[in-house]
C-alpha cells in the first residue's frame, strides 16, 4: 500500500493553549465583567420571569402570592391561549416553508442572471430594511376590503372582492403573506451567499459526469451544498415566524374574533392590558420553551448532519 494511504487525516480535538498560563484569580477577574453583564442582562430577567410565572402577581398590586403551577394549569385549560398556540403554529407552518422556498427560488433565479444581479437583490432585500409597522399600515390599506387597490383590481376584473383582514378565514393567511414577503428577501440574501460558496469546478465536474440538465445539477450539487445554509435559514425563519407580533398589533389586534390571536400578542394583552403578570410570565415561559427546542435543533442538526467538512 502506498505511503499516502496509511496516513489518515487526524483532526486534533485537544484544546490548544495560545498564551501564557494565568493564575485562576486573574482569569476569573478578567471574566467577571462579562459574566456580570450576562447575568444582569440575560440570566436574571429570565429567572425573574420564571419565578414570576409561579405567582399570582398583578401589575400595580403590592402583595404577591406563590401559587405553584396554578398559572400553567389555568393556561392549558384556557381556550384563548390554546387558540393562540394553535394560530401561532398554523402561522409558522405557512410562513417558514414559503419564505424559505421563495428565498431559495429567488436566489437561484438571480444567480442565473448575467446582468442586473445586484439590482434584483436590492429590490428583493428592500422589504427587510423597511419598518414592519409602517409596512403593515401600507399592507392594511392595500388589502382593505372596500378602498384597497387589491380589491379594486379584483372588482375591475369582475371577480368577487376579498376582505382579507375582515373575515376569519383569510386574516391569518394575510398576515402570513406579509411576513413571507419581508422574510423571503432576507432568506434570498443568505442563499445567495451560499450559492457563491459552491465552487465552479464542481459544476464542471457535474457536466463531465453527465448531469446535462440544470435540474440534475441543482438537485445533485447545488441543493446538497446549500444544506448548511438551508438548515440555518429554516431555523431562523421559524423563530422569526414564531415571534410574530407587530403586524397583529397594528392590523388585526388579534381579530376578527380571535382568528389572528397569536402567542406573543396574547401574552402582551395578558400582561399589559389585563395586568396579570403572573400568567403572562407563564405564557412567556411556554414561548421560551418552544424557542429552546428550535435552538437545540439548530445546534445539533446543523453541526452534525449538514456540514461536510
Amino acid at each position, binding site marked *: *500500500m*502506498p*505511503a*499516502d*494511504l496509511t*496516513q*489518515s*487525516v487526524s483532526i486534533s480535538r485537544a484544546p490548544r493553549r495560545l498564551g501564557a498560563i494565568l493564575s485562576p484569580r486573574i482569569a476569573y477577574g478578567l471574566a467577571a465583567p462579562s459574566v456580570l453583564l450576562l447575568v444582569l442582562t440575560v440570566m436574571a430577567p429570565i429567572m425573574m420571569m420564571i419565578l414570576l410565572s409561579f405567582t399570582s402577581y398583578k401589575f400595580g398590586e403590592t402583595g404577591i402570592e406563590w401559587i405553584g403551577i396554578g398559572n400553567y394549569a389555568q393556561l392549558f385549560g384556557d381556550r384563548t391561549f390554546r387558540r393562540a398556540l394553535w394560530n401561532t403554529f398554523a402561522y409558522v407552518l405557512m410562513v417558514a416553508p414559503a419564505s424559505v422556498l421563495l428565498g431559495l427560488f429567488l436566489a437561484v433565479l438571480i444567480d442565473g442572471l448575467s446582468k442586473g444581479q445586484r439590482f434584483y437583490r436590492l429590490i428583493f432585500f428592500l422589504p427587510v430594511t423597511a419598518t414592519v409597522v409602517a409596512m403593515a399600515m401600507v399592507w392594511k390599506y392595500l388589502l382593505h376590503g372596500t378602498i384597497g387597490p387589491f380589491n379594486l383590481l379584483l372588482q375591475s376584473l369582475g371577480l368577487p372582492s376579498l376582505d382579507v383582514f375582515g373575515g376569519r378565514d383569510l386574516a391569518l393567511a394575510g398576515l402570513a403573506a406579509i411576513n413571507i414577503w419581508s422574510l423571503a428577501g432576507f432568506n434570498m440574501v443568505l442563499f445567495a451567499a451560499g450559492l457563491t460558496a459552491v*465552487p465552479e*469546478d*464542481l459544476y*464542471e*465536474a457535474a*457536466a*463531465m*459526469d*453527465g*448531469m*446535462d440538465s440544470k435540474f*440534475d445539477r441543482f*438537485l*445533485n*450539487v447545488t441543493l*446538497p*451544498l446549500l*444544506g448548511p445554509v438551508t438548515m440555518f435559514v429554516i431555523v431562523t425563519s421559524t423563530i422569526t415566524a414564531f415571534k410574530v407580533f407587530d403586524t397583529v398589533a397594528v392590523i388585526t389586534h388579534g381579530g376578527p374574533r380571535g382568528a389572528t390571536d397569536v402567542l406573543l400578542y396574547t401574552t402582551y394583552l395578558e400582561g399589559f392590558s389585563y395586568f396579570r403578570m403572573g400568567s403572562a410570565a407563564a405564557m412567556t415561559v411556554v414561548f421560551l420553551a418552544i424557542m429552546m427546542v428550535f435552538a437545540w435543533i439548530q445546534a445539533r442538526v446543523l453541526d452534525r448532519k449538514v456540514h*461536510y*467538512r
Partner: protein
Amino acid sequence: MTAAVQLRNISKSFGETQTLRDVSLAIRPGEFMSLVGPSGCGKSTLLRILAGLAPQSGGTISIDGTGIDHLPPSARDIAMVFQSYALYPHMTVRQNIATPLRMRRLPAPARLPGIGRLWPGQRSKHNGIDQAVIDAARLVEIEPMLDRRPAALSGGQRQRVALARAIVRHPRVFLMDEPLSNLDARLRVTMRAEIAALHRRLGATFVYVTHDQVEAMTMSDRVAVMMDGEIVQCASPAQLYGNPRDLRVARFIGSPEIATISSDELIAENGGFAPVLPRDPVTVAFRPEAVLLSPAADHLEIPATLERIEQLGPELLVFLRLGSGTRLSARAAAGRIPLSAEGQSLSAWLPARGFMLFDANGRRLDAPHIREFADAG
C-alpha cells in the same frame, strides 16, 4: 477503447485578448500527450475546449475522425480530472465514483438523491454500478475508503478518488488538468509513476496539462510545449531536450536552465570561437552537462567567476558568471573538483562544436553557416 484526437486550427479569444491562436495537434490512439507551458499560455483553456466546458472561437475537434464540436461534455466520452479534484463534498467516496455511471445508466427518477434506490426495476443496474465502483477503487487502491467523505481523506487519497471517478466509465480519452499540483513534492513523484502506470494499464489516450516540465518529461510519450497561445514544438521528451526548435522551448525544458551567450560575447572571451560561429550575431546555448570545468579536447577555455554551488549528492551544480554578467551553469561529479570560495576565479571549457544556435527571433539554426566556410567561399 483508445481513440485518436485531432485538434484543427483551434482559436479562442476572450473579448480583445486572444488566448489560443490556430492550435493544431494530432494525438495518436493510446498516447500520453502532455501540454506544458508557463501559466497563462492557454494550455488549460485548450483542455477545457477539448472537454466541451468552453466553446472554441474557431477550429474543429474530432475523436477518431468524428467531429465532437456540437456535443455537450458528457456526450464526448471524455473524462476529466481537475486540479482541485472537484469531488462532491456531500457524497461518500463510493457515491462520488458512482456518479458518472448513475447519471448515464439510471432513468431520472432512480437517480434522485436518497429515494432513488426505491425506484423499481433497477436492481441489476445498481449492482452493475456497485461492482464497477469497486473495480475502479481497487485499481487506484482506495477500496478501504469507499464509505468516507472526501473531507476525511488526505490530498493524495482525494486525487485517487478523482482518478477513480474518471476511470469508472471507461472513457476513450482522459483529460488531466494539473492533477498533481496540489500535492506535496514527495507524493507528486509517487503519483507521477502511478498515473504513468495507470496509462499503460488502461491503454487509453491521455491528455495531461501541467506547468511542471519535469512531470511532462517523465510521464509522456510526446510533449507539446505551449507559449503565448501557440504550440511551439510537439515532440518526444528526448527530442525536446536535445533538439529544441525554439529558444523558448530550450529555456523551458531542462533544469538548471540552458545557458545562452551571444556569439559576440563568446568571441570576445575566446577568439577561438570566431571560426566556428556564423558571421551574423546569433545566440549560442549550452546545456549544463556541456560545460566542463577541466580541459578537454575540442573545448575552448573562457574565464568565469564562481557564484554558487548546489550539492545534489552524486553531482554538483556549479553556477558561474562571465565577465559581462552572463550566467552559465555546469554539472559536475561530486568530489572531482576542489571548489571553495564564492567569487573565486576559474575557467570553464565550452564545446567548440555541437552547440545549439538560435537566430535573433529565437528560432533554431539548423546548419550554422560557419565562418570557416564563409571565408573559404
